[in-house]
């Protein structure tokens, strides 16, 4: 079936819930109402003319800091060898939609991944846990407005380009374990450069290692 025919079949069945159809895109897609995704997916999987046996890929999307989130389903039928892309848009405040993991088992882990990296919640998923990041990770890394947490289990997370700036090791009283408590020594370095000393100059009061 061509994408147009698939769209017509979907339109007959779901009418108002089909929001957009774009055949000019590189991958022709149908945009649907997120609340209806389970019904649409069941229809696509179980109708014999369509018979989308395989969910090739399920991707969470973030369209920008002030834009929506979304999910893209790339479907393929091995029997009929046709494909279609289903898209849904979700609000940034409450990105929730029904899960399709009982229809395609592929969706099980892919939905967990979308939840882990983009914070999209799939209602009805039986095991919606983080999958790639640790369970106690903060934030959703693939969101465009993501800011990485400063410490994870006492380890400094953001990559610091100039490690020369930091030198002392102290005990963090709040966490009770050792962390690098950093202290800038850039001013001293600049000063020493001005005075014509070499860069190995150690400022007073610093400890070795």
């Amino acid at each position, binding site marked *: 079936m061509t994408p147009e025919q698939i769209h017509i079949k979907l339109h007959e069945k779901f009418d108002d819930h089909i929001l957009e159809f774009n055949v000019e895109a590189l991958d022709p897609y149908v945009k649907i109402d997120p609340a209806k995704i389970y019904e649409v997916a069941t229809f696509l999987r179980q109708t014999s003319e369509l018979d989308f046996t395989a969910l090739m890929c399920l991707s969470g999307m973030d369209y920008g800091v002030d834009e929506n989130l979304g999910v893209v389903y*790339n479907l393929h039928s091995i029997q009929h060898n046709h494909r279609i892309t289903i898209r849904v848009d979700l609000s940034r405040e409450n990105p929730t939609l029904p899960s399709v993991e009982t229809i395609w088992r592929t969706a099980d*882990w892919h939905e967990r991944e979308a939840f882990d990296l983009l914070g999209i919640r799939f209602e009805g998923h039986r095991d919606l846990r983080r999958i790639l990041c640790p369970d106690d990770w903060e934030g959703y890394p693939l969101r465009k407005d993501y800011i990485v947490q400063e410490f994870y289990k006492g380890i400094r997370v953001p990559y610091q380009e100039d490690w020369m700036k930091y030198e002392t090791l102290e005990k963090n009283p709040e966490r009770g374990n050792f962390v690098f408590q950093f202290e800038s020594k850039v001013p001293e370095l600049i000063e020493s450069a001005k005075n014509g000393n070499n860069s190995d100059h150690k400022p007073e009061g610093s400890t070795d290692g």
Partner: protein
Amino acid sequence: MFGNLFKKKRYLFDDEGTMVFDMAHSTGKYYDEAMKKLEVESYQGDEMVVNMGPQHPSTHGVLRLELVLDGEVVKKTTPHIGYLHRNFEKHAENIGYNEVIPFCDRIDYLASMNQDMAYALAVEKLIGLSDLPEKVEYMRVLTCELNRIASHLVAIGTFGLDVGAFTPFLWAFRDREKIMDLFEWLSGARLLYNYIWVGGLAREVPDGWFEKVREFLDYFGPKMVEFDKLLSTNHIFIARTAEVGILAPDLAVSYGCTGPVLRGSGIKWDLRKDEPYSYYDRFDFDVPVGAGELGQLGSVLDRYLVRIREIDESVKIIRQVLEGIEPFKDQDVKAAIPKKIRPAAGAEVYVRSETPRGELGFLIRSDGSDVPFRVKARSPCFSNISVIDNISRGGMIADLVVIIGSLDIVLGCIDR
């Protein structure tokens, strides 16, 4: 018993004959109730929870499996992944289209050429680049197939190691070394090649390289026959593998298994044949599938045999490439490389291609700049390993090791 139920009764029916519980697809009206009942029953008795990995040698990397065991019988397997997570996708959003390629190498570090190829195909489709020089296309197919042989040699070698055969492992690595040498000569690297670029290749083919490839094929043919004799027809090997880890075809499709795992279950689906990309439609080769000759269809042995036969098919393709490339040897491999990669804003494409482990798909979205807006890598191992709970239930813990080996996972590919 919990184990027997999962092994034998995949479906439960009510009095009227309606299916209420389908283990395989985890669906059915009373799935949750049935599962809850089974869970309650299962934790009675002498069961224990054992942690396998992430530093277990037979998990092929940093995979952690949480097992519920009754003696030596596996009741439940819960994989925990992410120990090698580098967030490739976030990296890719911050660097140019070309600069992503070295990161693609590191997704599946045993088949870097195929990963580069998949990414290059996706970007080329995004910017509408086609009609590459013939030499480029032939060289891409050639390097991908050589890499497929190298990757399968690791797969079957370590699989032999998993069932207790040490010699095949050494033999496989001996032959793989020759391919590594060829690639080193070609690209300068032994494992992470960064060779296939968008629109072309990174380096010109050295003089005399094709002759060396031909020499390798002549050397490799008899060695593979020898290897096959050593391992594939070994009675102990067959006894260990022919009835283990049965993956039903419908289950394999539903879980999104691809590559030799899917074909081992008897489904003839290979993107090189069914959705030909590059020049794959010009070559004559077969798609081997599992038939369950020595045991059950979809067993561990079937997956292994598919890999063995795919090596022969790859050799066949390479011989055809060496013939086909003859008239185009003087072409410039960098001629079609675009100066600037800047796809239209909002363009999005999903392209998949066949790597040794299955379908690698890239979903790339552009916002009109020269940095990708979103790159999603759908890795084959990620889907392949998710089926492990289903096929290991009711088996022995020693079989679990064999099953992991037969899925041929690379943790870099799972965690990305």
